[in-house]
């Protein structure tokens, strides 16, 4: 997280830590973790932890280890042999089914899925929150969970990021309506290692603060500018269908 600050897991109890690759995910149910497709691409048995602010090995002993039963990558995700050459992050969403149910508590609880009404269409200016153990301005990986608030901006903001590094040509990347662009003016952004984590917005229909997952950390042209998030609302039907067809007790 760029431009963020230390956060307790109690503030982002849905945050799931992926050890390899170093990434994030969002707990959406007792048996399901939502993440980015590129996180689990080529890794059908990701090891995950929930409920820990710190991801030092010693602290992970106290966290809940989540064992994958099966990984469902969105069928629209384009598989590639050389992931480093990927320029198409469309449909960057995946579900990980867990072997055992997650025990909920103050440090572990799921994030809501967006409703199907238009009220859950993320709009430019909506302020969301991200979290993760990804790269910061100072470190390649964070040991302490970081959180940040950042607004949704027009997709064009992401498209117009001026490249600082010669090897990133933003214009050559694919932008679709399945992506949300968000970023703070003060360099608030997600970064490498935050992938798959939730971009949450406050539920417009709840008086008490309640959040839903509007996006998943997907990719970005350059950390500290704007980032692209998978627009979860576009995948609610796929998510629900996948979960129903593979719920425990179903063959």
């Amino acid at each position: 997280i760029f431009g963020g600050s230390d956060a307790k897991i109690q503030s982002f109890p849905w945050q799931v830590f992926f050890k390899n690759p170093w990434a994030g995910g969002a707990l959406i149910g007792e048996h399901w973790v939502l993440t980015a497709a590129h996180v689990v691409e080529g890794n059908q048995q990701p090891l995950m932890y929930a409920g820990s602010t710190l991801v030092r090995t010693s602290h992970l002993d106290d966290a809940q280890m989540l064992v994958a039963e099966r990984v469902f990558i969105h069928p629209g995700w384009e598989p590639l042999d050389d992931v480093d050459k990927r320029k198409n992050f469309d449909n960057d969403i995946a579900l990980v089914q867990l072997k055992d149910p997650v025990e909920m508590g103050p440090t572990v609880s799921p994030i809501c899925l967006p409703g199907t009404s238009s009220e859950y269409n993320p709009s430019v200016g909506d302020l969301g929150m991200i979290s993760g153990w990804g790269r910061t301005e100072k470190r390649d990986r964070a040991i302490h969970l970081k959180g940040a608030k950042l607004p949704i901006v027009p997709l064009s903001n992401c498209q117009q990021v001026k490249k600082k590094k010669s090897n990133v040509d933003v214009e050559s990347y694919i932008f679709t309506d399945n992506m949300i662009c968000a970023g703070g003016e003060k360099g608030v952004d997600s970064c490498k290692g935050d992938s798959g984590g939730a971009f949450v917005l406050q539920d417009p229909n709840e008086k008490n603060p309640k959040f839903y997952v509007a996006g998943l950390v997907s990719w970005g042209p350059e950390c500290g500018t704007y980032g692209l998030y998978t627009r979860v609302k576009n995948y609610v039907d796929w998510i629900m269908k996948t979960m129903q067809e593979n719920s425990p007790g179903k063959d």
Partner: protein
Amino acid sequence: EPTMYGEILSPNYPQAYPNEVEKSWNIEVPEGYGIHLYFTHVDIELSENCAYDSVQITSGGVEEGRLCGQRTSKNPNSPIVEEFQVPYNQLQVTFKSDFSNEERFTGFAAYYAAIDVNECTDFADAPCSHFCNNFIGGYFCSCPPEYFLHADMRNCGVNCSGDVFTALIGEIASPNYPNEYPENSRCEYQVLLEEGFQIVVTVQRDFDVEPADSDGNCPDSLVFVAGDQQFGPYCGNGFPGPPNIETGSNVLVIIFQTDLTGQGKGWKLRYHGEPIPCPKEDTANSVWEPEKAKYVFKDVVKISCLEGSEVVEGSVGSTSFYSTCQSNGKWSNSELKCQPVDCGTPEPIQHGKAEDPESTLFGSVTRYTCEEPYYYMENEGSGEYRCAGNGSWVNEVLGAELPKCVPVCGVPSEPFKEKQR
């Protein structure tokens, strides 16, 4: 050894008998015979009551006669001067002389012969109940037609036993009814009905059996025996028992015993089998179909449990069962009862619990709750479940389906506060 005849002579006969002698003869003829003892000569000193010299004839300790003096025949064609006949087969003759004879007496000459005894007439007690037939050396009894001679060979009875009545309704009468019943008989009848029926007896009013003696004992009697119960003995003019005798048994033995005397018209009875009743038992929690004031053998009832109760057979619960009135007056399946439905301990649910209900019987209420604030009840409804008649805990909305506690989403336990940078 018994002999058929013999001679007895006084000492020295026909010479004078000596003084101071006493001699006895024990005469015995074969059994069944009497003795004819006759004297052809008697010449014994005469004295008052034959106190000095005498010949004494005794039988069984009883003196049959005592002779003295001189006797002559009253019948010129017969040599017999004195004779005795006894119906017994033993006789004792004793001759005695004292010391004072001054004259010459020649004594006596006597002969005996076995004679036939007419046992039918010679004795005071009648040896046969009906017909007596004498023959030489004995007698035999015989009976009128339809009578038979008992094993004692003296008494006649009627062969009236052995009848077994199996019809549900029937009539039985004493032998010869309404004419006089036979004496000296024992009639045993049996009424044998199917199990499950009790025999009820009604004796006709014209009952006429030799009345009881002064001690209240019936010389002739009618007795009913049913299992361990006995009704009677009954006797007298007019039936002294109840109008209807409910024996409580499907087997009845009727015994009619008569003695040698005192005959009467006898009796006649009607019997019928009455199905054994089964008690109508307490119907708490249940309804009997069909509803009757009285249930009897072979009746079948369906016992349906009222709502909220059930009958448990083994591990299976049902709402009704059938019961049959049995031959012993008891209901089958009597061990089965309608009992309040017990829903048992409410099933546990994940991430929630059911409060312990005060009771788990029909109508009791329990409430499920989820582990708040991290889980909530997914389904609508209060979480209240009531023990229903089918043995399940039932919710108004979900029915018997258990509530589901699902995670609360999107609510951090601590809000994220961004630190100012």
